[in-house]
């Protein structure tokens, strides 16, 4: 593919991603906008003032969402990385059953699972707590982490680790100097998945959080379908911004890694 075609492709992708955000941006600065005007009749910053006010709880939701997405991602790595390696590189009894069970949270609608778990969480006093919401976010996150990373580990194999061991590296040194740099691109992609999955959870947060843990989707959803389009637009921009930032950061750090698609081998 020559250079100009590549640029065209890049431009199309950028437009496809950013174009839907432009009406949102306009809406967020609108005071009055009636059909059939092409642009708002009266501009205003009320929506943004509302977003930054304490009563909107957008700030609280943003911090909770960020914390939840980060902690959930870290736990997904802690649980998913060893599991992915085991599934990719070792044979053991019941392996295909484990693989199948891992797919279940992706296939079964979340609401079905949560109804059952909700009762347990009430019993263990986990409802309405950060820990409870984080645990419920882990359910859809861990399968994605394991699916992506088992593809990465299967691709990566053990030859380089074996080499490091024979050269005198302990298992910790081998992981730190050889395995981690090798799987890092795949790990970044998997972490991006878990971050965004946790970031966009609504039903799970709503039911387990019980209104005490407020995240951005919880703040945003009541406005959608409501009359205040301007506020909905402003909040949804706040909602999209970190996700876009994560996407851009990760795709930039992967720009030189052509092997990254290996991580999707199992998806």
């Amino acid at each position, binding site marked *: 593919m020559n250079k100009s075609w590549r640029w065209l492709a890049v431009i199309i992708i950028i437009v496809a991603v950013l174009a839907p955000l432009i009406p949102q941006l306009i809406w967020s600065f609108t005071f009055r906008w009636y059909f059939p005007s092409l642009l708002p009749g009266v501009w205003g910053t009320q929506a943004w003032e509302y977003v930054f006010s304490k009563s909107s709880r957008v700030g609280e939701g943003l911090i909770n969402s960020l914390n939840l997405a980060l902690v959930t991602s870290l736990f997904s790595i802690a649980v998913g990385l060893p599991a992915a390696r085991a599934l990719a590189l070792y044979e053991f009894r019941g392996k295909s059953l484990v693989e199948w069970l891992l797919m279940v949270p992706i296939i079964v609608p979340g609401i079905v699972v949560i109804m059952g778990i909700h009762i347990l969480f009430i019993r263990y006093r986990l409802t309405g707590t950060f820990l409870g919401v984080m645990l419920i976010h882990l359910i859809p996150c861990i399968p994605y982490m394991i699916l992506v990373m088992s593809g990465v580990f299967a691709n990566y*194999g053990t*030859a*380089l680790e*074996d*080499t*490091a*061991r*024979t*050269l*005198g*590296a*302990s298992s910790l*040194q081998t992981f730190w*100097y*050889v395995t981690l*740099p*090798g799987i890092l691109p795949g790990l970044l992609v998997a972490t991006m998945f878990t971050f965004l999955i946790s970031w966009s959870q609504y039903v799970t947060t709503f039911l387990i959080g019980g209104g005490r843990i407020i995240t951005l989707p919880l703040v945003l959803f009541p406005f959608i379908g409501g009359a205040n389009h301007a506020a909905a637009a402003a909040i949804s921009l706040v909602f999209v911004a970190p996700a876009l930032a994560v996407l851009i950061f990760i795709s930039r750090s992967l720009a030189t890694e052509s092997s990254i698609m290996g991580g999707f081998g199992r998806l």
Partner: protein
Amino acid sequence: MTTVTLQHLTRRFGNVAAVNALSLEIQSGEMVAFLGPSGCGKTTTLRMIVGLLLPSGGDILFDGKSMLTVPTEKRGAVMVFQKHLLFPTLTIAQNVGFGLRMRGLPQNEIAARVTEMLELVHLPGFENRRAHELSGGQQQRVALARGLIIRPRVLLLDEPLANLDANLRLEMRELIRSIQQELKITSIFVTHDQEEAVMLADRVALMFDGVLQQFDAPRVFYERPLNAAIARFYRSENFLSGIKRGSQVETALGTLRVTSSDAQPDGPVLLTVRPEDVAIGAGPDNNRITAKVTAVVYMGTHTQLQLNVDGRAWRAEGPADFTAQPGDTLSVHLPDKRIWLLPTES
């Protein structure tokens, strides 16, 4: 300087013994080849020696000390694999210096020894390159330098020449041999190529199906193989059945005199002569048999003949100007000193 002793070393995968009761002793500074067709257990043996695979039974000793409970990184046995050679995220200098860095040596000492090692493998000035910028042969040499820099007790090479083209293979073979002789490291390499084993190794351990067949100097495999399968692996299928009585063997084609008559007891034997030892045309009058020519192939430096000897397919070599037609009957001489006796095949 380390001797390596394997005692009844066994490794089973399920019910199959990949390596079966392998016992041998490798002298300090010796270069040994594990030779055999693929799947004969030679790489499995290497992985057990280095500690990447646990044996199902038996013992591995370095200088008389059991290594079974010593983890890979503490054994001091370095393994050079045939592919996935270098760490892709590190520079060449970091690759070569890896083992020293893991041991916590100071940076300047590592740098000095890396430079020294890169010179030894004829790659001076390659410090800041990356693995993907190097050719296969260069990567192989870096992998060798990376292994040698930690001054291993034992150097293990898994098919080190398999992924190289013919010229590079020759060059690499000489490099490995000269470095091994200079540093006097006890070395084991795995190969399926019997010529490679002959040219590189002090002694060859030939394995079939996980069982050690013969452990000897390379020339012994040509001159005194222990059985027909070994002779066949060394590309000699010239066999003739007979009954040995003293220094004579009675065959369907006449009675032949043999020198090495104590190789087998009197009774049924399998007689063999290497293709290059079968004398075509003129020669002494004794020890002659008749053979039918089935094919003649001109090889440039010599002529290769395919013969039918008592219903068995033989090969022989004649001078380049030798002329014969398929269907001709030849009288060939088998020198009594070049006849070797094998047990009959069951």
